[in-house]
């Protein structure tokens, strides 16, 4: 069985990721309700080693990894790959120049 840690920690991190993804009304989102309901349903068991509980925990950890990686990947993309080229005005401005204004337009 994979080393997963405490289920509560995974649940809290997962709900935090859902809040990042959804925004204001994250508590009404179907994902939030489904996750909370699933964790509640599998909590009460008389068995010490509950296979279904471990399966659910693994699924939750995987979904957490998915949400987290997508958010980090998007942040990295925005930071490094999303800008595109600078316009000629911006480039000129970087070295302190301004492009000349031609009264009749170009050409």
């Amino acid at each position, binding site marked *: 069985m*994979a080393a997963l840690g405490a289920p509560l920690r995974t649940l809290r991190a997962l709900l935090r990721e859902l809040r990042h993804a*959804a925004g204001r009304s994250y508590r009404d989102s179907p*994902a939030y309700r489904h996750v909370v309901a*699933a964790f509640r349903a599998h909590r009460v068991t008389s068995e010490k080693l509950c296979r279904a509980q471990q399966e659910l925990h693994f699924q939750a950890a995987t979904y957490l990894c998915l949400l987290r*990686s*997508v958010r*980090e990947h998007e942040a*990295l993309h925005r930071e490094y790959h999303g800008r595109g080229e600078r316009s000629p005005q911006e480039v000129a401005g970087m070295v302190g120049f301004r492009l000349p204004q031609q009264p009749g337009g170009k050409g």
Partner: protein
Amino acid sequence: LWWAHSPPARLPRPPPAAAGSGPVGPCGRRAYAPPAERKRFYQNVSISQGEGGFEINLDHRKLKTPQAKLFTVPSEALAIAVATEWDSQKDTIKFYTMHLTTLCNTALDNPTQRNKAQLIRAAVKFLETDTVCYRVEEPPALAELQKNEWDPVVAWAEKRYNVTIGSSTSILGPNIPASTKETFVNHLASYNMWALQGIEFVITQLKSLILSMSLIDRHITVEKAVLLSRLEEEYQIRRWGNVEWAHDYDLCELRARTAAGTLFVHLCSESSTVKHKLLQD
């Protein structure tokens, strides 16, 4: 996959191209290339249950696949996850972040038109060039690292599936006996078509059948599987330094895809039933 980026929902008139197309601009774009990003055109995302399974609704429109089939998934949890993907898009729809949607589209459309046997064959073929079986001889530190990290996973697979795999430092790779391949073919045959698409996707991402199976059997976590898959890169990063815009970017993307694939397999192959225990007097 080219079709993964074409807009899934079919509208009578597509909205104008999203902003931020780069230096060329909308006029310079090729006419047949689908836009990489589109503006978010819906307010609400919801799920409904139809005849074939669960469907996604963007406002009042039903989501369709790139080949214009109705988007239906067998599992409610999967539908909820896909709906969350669509709902978490802000101003623009970034298709390259919507891995679960892409996987569902692949399963529904089957654009490579492979049947179950072909998928299984493609998956098991990876064993011949499996990452964890391909060892280096130098530098010795890396060879040692591979032995310490990869040997346990190979041993686990051999025990779990009762097969012989081994590892090799030769350029031809390990010599996998036919009985081993047979065992894996039979094991994979027990999964349905959707789950198999997911399994083949994970194998292609991790470049390893053994790592994928140990992930799907819940022996290791996604983070660990990705780490083991990128073992040599991690070694070089520790040696020469990390380049955020390349290494971390690739790492996050690989984690996202692998996690999506694994979740997809589990959600497509499970059937959850709640058994209520009778109270014991």
